[in-house]
C-alpha cells in the first residue's frame, strides 16, 4: 500500500501518510469482505482528494521533504506523470502498476469505464506531447 501511495502521490512521506489513513479507515469500517480492495480504493480516493485540495502544497512538500537524489534508472517520464491531474495519474498507476482492467479501475475510482478510457487516453496523449516537445 505504501508503494501504491508513493506512486499515486510522488512522495514517500505523503504515500505513507495516506496509506496509514487508509488503514485507519479500514479499522473504523470493521469487517470488510475484501480488505485489500477496500484499502486500494481508499488510498486512491485519498490521493485524488489530496491532489484537489493541495496540489501546490504537495509540490512544495516534494521539494522540501524528499531528498533530491539522481536516479538514472528512472525514466524521464516520471516527473511528467507527477504533473498529471490526480485522476489521470491514478488511472495510469492502477493500469500499469496494479495491472487492473478498465472495468476494475472504474470500480476503484467510482466512475464509468468509458470515463476511465477517456482519462487514460488523455494522460497518454499528454505524456506523448510532453516527451515530443
Amino acid at each position, binding site marked *: 500500500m505504501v508503494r501504491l501511495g508513493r506512486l499515486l502521490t510522488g512522495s514517500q512521506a505523503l504515500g505513507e501518510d495516506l496509506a496509514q489513513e487508509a488503514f485507519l479507515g479500514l479499522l473504523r469500517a470493521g469487517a470488510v469482505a475484501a480488505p485489500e480492495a477496500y484499502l486500494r480504493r481508499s488510498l486512491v480516493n485519498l490521493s485524488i482528494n489530496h491532489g484537489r485540495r493541495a496540489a501546490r502544497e504537495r509540490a512544495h512538500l516534494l521539494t522540501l521533504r524528499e531528498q533530491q537524489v539522481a536516479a538514472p534508472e528512472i525514466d524521464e517520464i516520471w516527473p511528467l506523470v507527477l504533473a498529471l491531474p490526480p485522476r489521470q495519474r491514478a488511472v495510469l498507476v492502477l493500469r500499469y502498476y496494479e495491472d487492473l482492467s478498465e472495468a476494475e479501475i472504474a470500480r476503484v475510482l467510482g466512475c*464509468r469505464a468509458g470515463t476511465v478510457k477517456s482519462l487514460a487516453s488523455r494522460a497518454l496523449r499528454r505524456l506523448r506531447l510532453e516527451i515530443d516537445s
Partner: protein
Amino acid sequence: MTDIETRLQLTFAHVADATVIPPVPRPEPVPGTPAPSHRRRWPVLVALAGVIAAVLVVIEAVLPSGTPGAPPKAVAAIERLAVTAARSPGDRAKPGQYSHLIERIRQGNETIVIQTWTSHDGLSWRSYTANDGAPPYSVGWGESDTADPSLQFLDSLPTNPTALNHYLRSHVSGSSSTDAAVFTAAGDLLRQGDAPPALRAAVIRVLERTSGITAEAAEDSVGRAAVKITFTDPTRQSGPQSLLFDPKTSSLLEEQDGPNFTATYTYTRPADKVPAVVAAEAGPRPSRPSPATSSSPATASSPTTAA
C-alpha cells in the same frame, strides 16, 4: 503495448521499489550547451517503425483522400441519425430526479454491470457487480468536462455543429489524434443520455466532419438493431472504436473499443430515487469540488432514497 506504456510499467516498478523518490523538477538546461538526454530512444524507434508501416497500409483504405470528414455514404447515414436525434425528445431527468443508467462492461473475459444514478447537480451514486467482494457502491462528483459531463456542462455547449466541432477540437485532449479525441468525446457526451436533442444532433453531425469514419447497419452485443459508426485511426494500436446508435431514437446503445472492450447501455431513464441500499452503503456525501473544477453552481441536496 506502446513505447509509453512499456516505459510507464518499468518506471512504476522502479519508483515503487526505490528507496528514495527520484527528483521531480526537470533540470534547467545550461544556456549554450545541449542538455543531456536520459531518454530511452530504442522503444520509440521500434514503435515509430511500426506506426509508419501501419499508416502506409491503412491510410488509403480509411481516410477519404484529400477531404476532411466522413465519406459520402457514411455522411448520409449519420445525417439520418442526426435528424432523428433532433426530433427525439429523450428522457432527461428533471430537477429532483436522477438519471439512471445501466451499463454492462465486457473487457476480455470479465463482465461487470454498473448502475449510475446522477442527480441534477452532478452527484453520482454507483453500484457495481462485485464478484471479488470489493466495495460495490460509491458516491462522487463528476469532473464536469467532456470526459464526465454534468447537465450544466451539456447545456453550456454550442448546438451548432460547426461551433461544436470547433469547440471540441480546441478543448479535447488525449487519444492518438485530434480526430480520435473528438470521437471519444462524442461518446462521452452521449453516454448518459442527458444531452438535449439539439446537442445530440450536433454531436452526431460533428462525426460527419471527422476523418476516418465509416457507418453501417449492425447489431449490438445484445442483438438490438443499430447504426454502427466506426472511427479507424491508423496510428492507434488497440484497433477501431465504434459507437452504436438506435436508428429509431439515435440514443447510444453501445461503445466498442478494439476487440476486447464493449460497454452496452441497456437502460437510460429518469429515476425519482436512489435505492436506499445504494445511498446507505456508498457512504457519506462528499463535499463538492472547488468551483475551478466544476462549471455548475453548488445547489445539491441530500439524495432522495427509495426503500
